[in-house]
Structures are given as structure tokens and as C-alpha cells.
């Protein structure tokens, strides 16, 4: 079990408990605004873009090739950007803070 915090674009802070599945699913199931996951989590759309809290970035790691390419040209991307459909919930992520990113 890991406590995962999402901060939406309207600065709503939503604390969730994640056990398994992607963080995109977790966010969608709990109605986190701005996380739409429209491609269903197959890394095709970037509608689940988050900025990972810099101190936690090492926990979630760097994006894979497809994901990095999708993010590279995203106007709202930062060096801490990830698509949360590509992050699986696990105990090591306890305390993770994710800021929902804006859309192009």
C-alpha cells in the first residue's frame, strides 16, 4: 500500500491509497480532474501527464522511449514529467506527490 497524492490544476489535493495497477487508473477511479487516460493506458495520448515532485523523481524513474518522445515535444513538460499510466503502484512509491500537468 502506498499513499499517493495528486494535486490538480485547481490546486485540489487528493490523497489516495494505491496497491496495484497504474497511477492513471488510480487517479481516474477517484475522479482526479485532468487525468483522462484517453488511450486507456497504452502510452498513446499524454492525457495523464503529471509532474513528479522533484524529490520523488528517483523513486518513479525515467520514462521509457515512447513516453520520453511523447513528452519531449509537450509544451507543458518539465524534467520531472511522466505519464502516470506508465507508473505502477507499489509500496516504494509511498508518499509520492504528483502535480497534474496542463494541456497543450
Amino acid at each position: 500500500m502506498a499513499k499517493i497524492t495528486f494535486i490538480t490544476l485547481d490546486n485540489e489535493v487528493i490523497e489516495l491509497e494505491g496497491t496495484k495497477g497504474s497511477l492513471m487508473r488510480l487517479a481516474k477511479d477517484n475522479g482526479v480532474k485532468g487525468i483522462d487516460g484517453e488511450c486507456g493506458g497504452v502510452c498513446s495520448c499524454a492525457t495523464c501527464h503529471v509532474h513528479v515532485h522533484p524529490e520523488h523523481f528517483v523513486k518513479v524513474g525515467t520514462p521509457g522511449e515512447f513516453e520520453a518522445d511523447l513528452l519531449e515535444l509537450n509544451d507543458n513538460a518539465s524534467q520531472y514529467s511522466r505519464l502516470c499510466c506508465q507508473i505502477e503502484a507499489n509500496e516504494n512509491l509511498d508518499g509520492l506527490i504528483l502535480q497534474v500537468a496542463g494541456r497543450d
Partner: protein
Amino acid sequence: METDSKTCIIVGASQAGVTCAFELRNEGWKGRIILIDSDPSLPYYRPPLSKSVLTGTESIAEHALKPIQLYKKENIELNTGKKVVALNREKSSVELEDGTSLYYDKLVLATGSRPIVPGIDGINKMKNGFTLRNQEDAQKIHRALKNSKAKRVVIIGAGFIGLEAAASLIKLGAKVTVLEKESRVLSRVTSPEMSLFFQKLHAGNGVEIYTNKSVCSFSIQNDNDLVKCTDGIEYHADIVIFGIGVTVNAELAIAAGLQTENGIVVNEKALTSEENIYAIGDCSFHFNSLYNRFIRLESIQNASDQARVAASNICGKQKMYNAIPWFWSDQFDVKMQMVGLQDGYNELILRNTDGPESKKFSAWYFRDDKLLAVDAVNDMKAYMIGTKFIKNNIRVNKLKLANPEEEFNQVNLSSL
């Protein structure tokens, strides 16, 4: 707008309808929201039906659009397993199959589309003929394959659904034959160059694809379906899947006298010819300002974006639909992404940074100097650059684009 005592009814609870319901709350709709669908399941996401749900690696429950508690939380009245049979414009009501009438202030038609079942001789007596549109279809196909020894699958139609189903079923050990009546696969959606790539991809993975093949009859032989083509060749099938396109569910709109063409006609606000009635998603025939024409799209992008536009306008805001269409398809180890609409292109440039045999490349479609669309195969960068160029109407340096030695980035490719 004061919406407390008002009712919005949404007919159809798939991608468009469900998105619209939640966006209405997001945009400040305070009245009732009644969401109705004839499918009894908790509304789900359809793309996996031809992929992970068909192979059985994921269940449809994992692909619910929203968990049930969110409907409760947002006070969205979800009525599944209920069919709307009539729309009465004078009374502003819809009638359900059980005779109940529901009254609306605003109505959203998100009725979608349904697979075409061809009127081929013998089709009504088929043993194992399926279409693939809802979860029940995917389950039936999965089960029929499990129960079959020979596992011979004949897929009629080589569009996205047919090819995705072929890729999924071959993973389960099926012997898959695809019959396409046109001269190439994916002829409705992409160029001959891409068709060739996909044809080879499938052949390389053991799918038998035959083009210029028209089916003329079905019969039963040895307790199995027999598919006969106009050239006299017959195919024995344990399972037959039809993937030959869809028909719009426009009956309600037509009967109510709304303007329809290739779908329910709507303007940039997703509003139909009738005040207070909107149409979104697969069923809408809408104006796309980027391509300056009316189009109908079968895609998640269009369903979601139009749902947002309708919700916003229903709540009294001014939001116009001007999204760039995008699509994707996953088959075998290939992720294909498409952005824009290529119809009417007169020049195609292939960009192949990693060499001609690579499975990572992109096809760029131009009408003279205007970039219309990009098909990207395992090439996220091409998809992203293409999207930016189309969105911002940037002129592409075609010589640089065609030269794999030239750096593949927005700045370099846009410098003339």
C-alpha cells in the same frame, strides 16, 4: 444559467455520453443528469475489446470508464439496460421500451454506431458469426475460440477492427484468414503505402490476408460455417467475424425529424438542427474548421472532445469544436498513431530515420504545401511533430523531411 431544476438526458453511455455527463458537473450543471444505455454493463472503454479483452489478458471490469461510486458522488443517474425507443420534440421527452417517459430540458444524443451485418445469403443461419462492438461480443468470440479445436477464424473486412482482432486471435493460437473486398487492407483509412506495411506485418505473423475477395454465401458444412467467395473459393470457419464498418444509430434522430446526413448534423457547438438537442461522438456529422468540411469520426478523441464542447455549451458557455482528429491502433509489436485527416492528399513523404527496413517510420500527407496528416509507426516523435505542425499550420521543409540524415525536430523541419 440557473440549472438547479433542469434535467439533462444523455442517450448512450459510452465514451461520449459518460464524458459528457461528468463534464456537465464540471461545468456547473446543478440539475438532474440522466444517462441511459441499452447495454446492461457498467459503461466501459471499448478499445481493448479487440485487443487485451479479446485475448483475455484483461477483463472489461478493468476498463470501466468510471467506477460506480463516482456516478453516485456526482449524482449522475445511470440507467443501464434501458432502451430509448422514441424522442418526442414537442413534449421534450424520450420514451423507454417499458413505456416510461422522461422529460428533458437539454438532450444529448450519444447513440454511437453499430457494426454492419451484410445481407449475404445464408447469414441468418450461421453457427458462429460475430460482430465486435461490445463486451458480450468479445466474450462470445473468446469463448467460441476456446471451445474450438481447429480454431479456424475467418475475418471479413481488413479495417482496424478486423486487423486488430486478427493480431489478437493469432496470439491465442487461432489460424486466421482475413478476406477483404477492396484491393488492399485499411483502404478506408490510410494510403496504399501503409496498407502494404500492414499487409506484410500480418503475413509475417502468420495471418493469411486475401484482398479483392467478396463473400457471396454462408452455409453449414460438417457442423461448421463455410464461407464462399465470388471467385468460387471456400473457407471453413469455426468462427467468422465481421469487421466491415458501422452504421450510425440515427433512428431516434431521424424519426424525430432532426437533420441527418452521414450521421446527425451538428454545428461547432455540437448542437443539432433542434434547439436543446445535441449530438456527440460516432453518431454526429460535424463541421471541422481545420479541414473546412463536415465529417463523421469513429474515435475516442472525437467522442471525448465533442462531449466537452456539448457540456460547456449546455451550461451556457461558448466553446467551439476545433480539435485535430487523432487515432491509434496496436497490432503485434506495432503502435500506429494517426493525426489529421489525409483525404485529398496529393503528395506522400515517407520519413525513415532508422533505415528502410525499420519498423519505426512515418508517412506525411500533403496537399501541395499544406500538411494534412501524419501516420506514425512506432514513432512517437513523428506523431508529436506532425501534431504541432498541423495545429499551428506550419509549413514543412519537405526536402529535409525526406532526408533521414536531417535532424528530426520541429525547428529543423520547419526552416525553409
